[in-house]
């Protein structure tokens, strides 16, 4: 009896060892509790949509043994989420879906003591470009006309955005500086509200992600004038970029999944494998196209380097705004 048990155990161990190929590192760690999937924005926004999309793909294909639990921690422009990750008691089960407040909030709120470069890179799901939109009733169809109109209005041209220090305000600040524009900027609490007030012509122009303006664009209400991407966007081939206009500036919203600082290498490898599969799946690839996200696949080292340059860029951009 005893013998057979030992024999059985030996066989079991032996066979495990035999079938232990290269992927061992990713295989031998699995979440042991539900995974905290923190979203650094409120419900309904771009980051929230992406988090819930990813969660549902994982759920639908039964890709994890423990569920991902999305929790919105958008307080303080993402400060709440950043602190939650920084102080995570169980870094191996704590992930976050980011936007660019990942860079801007620690710079603007130094008291938080958050250094994002200590966070663990997991997967870059894509980057979200920005586009300048006006309402069709304004009659403006080109960027040059827009510049002219803004100058004529002499400080009375009203644009809406998601607030000082937020992504679109950085873009608008750069554009205003480059073209010497005097714009009245009205902050709103989300990209959806901004788009709605452009549709109602409460404001005259916005800088929105394509996803937020798409419905109105397709209905013919919004006219895209300029893209702040590196190259012309597939969905808007006729819209010139700011780079074509001779200014070396592009700006994207980072849609990434990051892990808490101090996450173990095994856990990070597991999540990279998991979200890598999500990224390559048809669902996500379709989503990238329909929401006009640009792919920007990066490995760990590239991501770290990317973060370092982004932090530096944002520090510069923000210092120019304030």
């Amino acid at each position, binding site marked *: 009896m005893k013998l057979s048990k030992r024999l059985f155990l030996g066989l079991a161990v032996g066979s495990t060892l035999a079938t232990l190929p290269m992927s061992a590192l990713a295989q031998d760690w699995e979440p042991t509790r539900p995974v905290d999937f923190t979203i650094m924005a409120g*419900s*309904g926004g771009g980051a*929230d*949509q992406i988090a*819930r*999309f990813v*969660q*549902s793909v994982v*759920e*639908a294909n039964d890709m994890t043994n423990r569920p991902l639990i*999305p*929790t919105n*921690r*958008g*307080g*303080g*422009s993402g*400060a*709440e989420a950043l*602190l939650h990750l920084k102080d995570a008691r169980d870094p191996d089960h704590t992930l976050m879906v980011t936007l660019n407040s990942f860079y801007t909030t620690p710079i*603007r*709120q130094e008291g938080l003591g958050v250094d994002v470069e200590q966070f663990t890179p997991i997967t870059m799901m894509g980057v979200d470009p920005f586009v300048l939109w006006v309402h069709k009733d304004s009659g403006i169809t080109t960027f040059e006309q827009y510049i002219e109109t803004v100058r004529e209005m002499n400080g009375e041209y*009203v644009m809406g955005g*998601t*607030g*000082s*220090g*937020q992504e679109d*305000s950085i873009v608008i600040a750069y554009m205003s500086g480059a073209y010497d524009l005097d714009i*009245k*900027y*009205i*902050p*709103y*609490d989300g990209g*959806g*509200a901004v*788009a*709605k*007030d452009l*549709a*109602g*012509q*409460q404001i005259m122009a916005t800088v929105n992600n394509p*996803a937020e303006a*798409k*419905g*109105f664009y*397709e*209905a013919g*209400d919004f006219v895209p004038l300029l893209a702040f991407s590196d190259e012309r966007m597939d969905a808007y081939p006729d819209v010139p970029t700011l780079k074509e206009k001779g200014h070396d500036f592009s700006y994207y919203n980072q849609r990434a999944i990051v892990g808490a600082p101090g996450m173990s290498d095994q856990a990070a490898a597991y999540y990279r494998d998991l979200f890598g599969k999500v990224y390559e799946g048809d669902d996500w690839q*379709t*989503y990238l196209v*329909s*929401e006009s996200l640009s792919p920007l696949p990066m490995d760990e080292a590239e991501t770290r380097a990317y973060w370092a340059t982004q932090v530096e860029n944002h520090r510069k951009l923000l210092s120019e705004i304030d």
Partner: protein
Amino acid sequence: MEVLSFLASGVLTALEPINLGLILIGVTVGLFIGAMPGLGSVNGVAILLPITFLVPPASAIIFLAAIYYGAMYGGAISSVTLGIPGASTAVATTFDGRPLALQGRASLALVTAALASFVGGTVATVFFSLFAPLLATVALNFGPPEIFALMLLAFATFVGLGGDDIPKTIFSICFGLVLATVGFDTISGEPRLVLFDIQGFLRGIGFIVLAIGVYGIGEMLWTIEQTRGEITTTNPKMTVKGLASDAKEAVRRGWKGTWIGSLLGFFVGVLPAAGATPGSLMSYGVAKMVSKTPEEYGHGSPDGVAAPEAANNSASTGSMLPMLTLGIPGSPTTAILLGGMVIWGLTPGPRLFIDESEFVWGLIGSFYISNLAAVLINLAFIPLFVWMLRMPFTILAPLIFVLSIVGGFAASRSMHDLWLIVIFGLGAFFMRKFDYPLAPAVLAIVLGPIAEPTLRQSLLLSSGDPAIFFTRPIAGPITVIAIILILLPAIKLLRRKGRVATS
């Protein structure tokens, strides 16, 4: 009559076996999620969103909308039976629902709530079917100055009511407004009033946290003090006959509130900024204002139950409208539905009615069916809920405490919120002892976060000139009415003095 044929095919879609099954499940699940304090339609819809990837998009949104609906009905249940608002949308229901329950008329309150919800939901759906595109343009005409004017009007309905102690009402509103400013300031992009540097305040003070503290813990303490644990609040027997006579009484004494709630709630729900919670609070205020017997409010008026309940159902249908036609969520729950639609590959926005008319009309058809299902299921469960009240308060009190804590934690999974609930509960108990009205503070913390940014956005638009609230065609009249309502008590006072002087 193109609309009718669309509608007919929509209702048929909703009656397909799979959809009908999902409606029944959704409404029932929603009813219980809504009845759980703290858990509201937002949580229900968010938790169940991933499940919907197993069925076609039309069925998925029908299911989620059914949950949304069911939760609106269910919210009233714990508001009435336990005095804890089941969801933020049901806070105003506690104002009169709880007193009715204490008088042993819980079943009347619940029947009123169910019937008002049904009327509210149905009226809103009819409007929705007939005027959706038109209403969408109205919503677009509401910019920051209009929304602010509307918020001012909402405050005015609470201040100008008279009867209550006005200085204390104003104090209570101001207290709520201060709490509403805690957190992150969108306009300047800076955190503010992060009390004692506690991280939890970065998120601001959640409305549901305040509501559970004030109405769950505070109410429990108050009842314990008043009764020393002696009472059992009961209406021991529930019969079909009793239910029928309650229904009759509900119709007789609650129809006015129901109509006000249905119309006002729908309108407020359609405006993208607001949603069902402000809608129900405003309807309560207006119903009280136009009532011939305002002194009954707060002491168990069926109208006071009917108005917010009709409004929250009506508003939840209304808030679907900007979501579908503009792609803008009118409430936190529709924000999640919107995310869902994107995931299902639909683009909400002006083209949705044209490109995906089958989907849209299937959804609208399901509103009718969901409403009918919800009211029947709700009525069927009322005896069960009333039965809960037969428990002695010595058992009920700890139950309320546990439900408040569990519900508060479930909503945000944060210990910080739990401490706040306890603190607000104690604070509310003392405010009540000193006779400060609590409802205005609750109203302020709901409306403050809408009123403050719109005020500042408007003033930014006008370069600081307050005339913007008077010169715009929609904002102007609303502002004037609001100011008259606020000044009404003062005018009454002057008149009375004048009369005394002449005599």
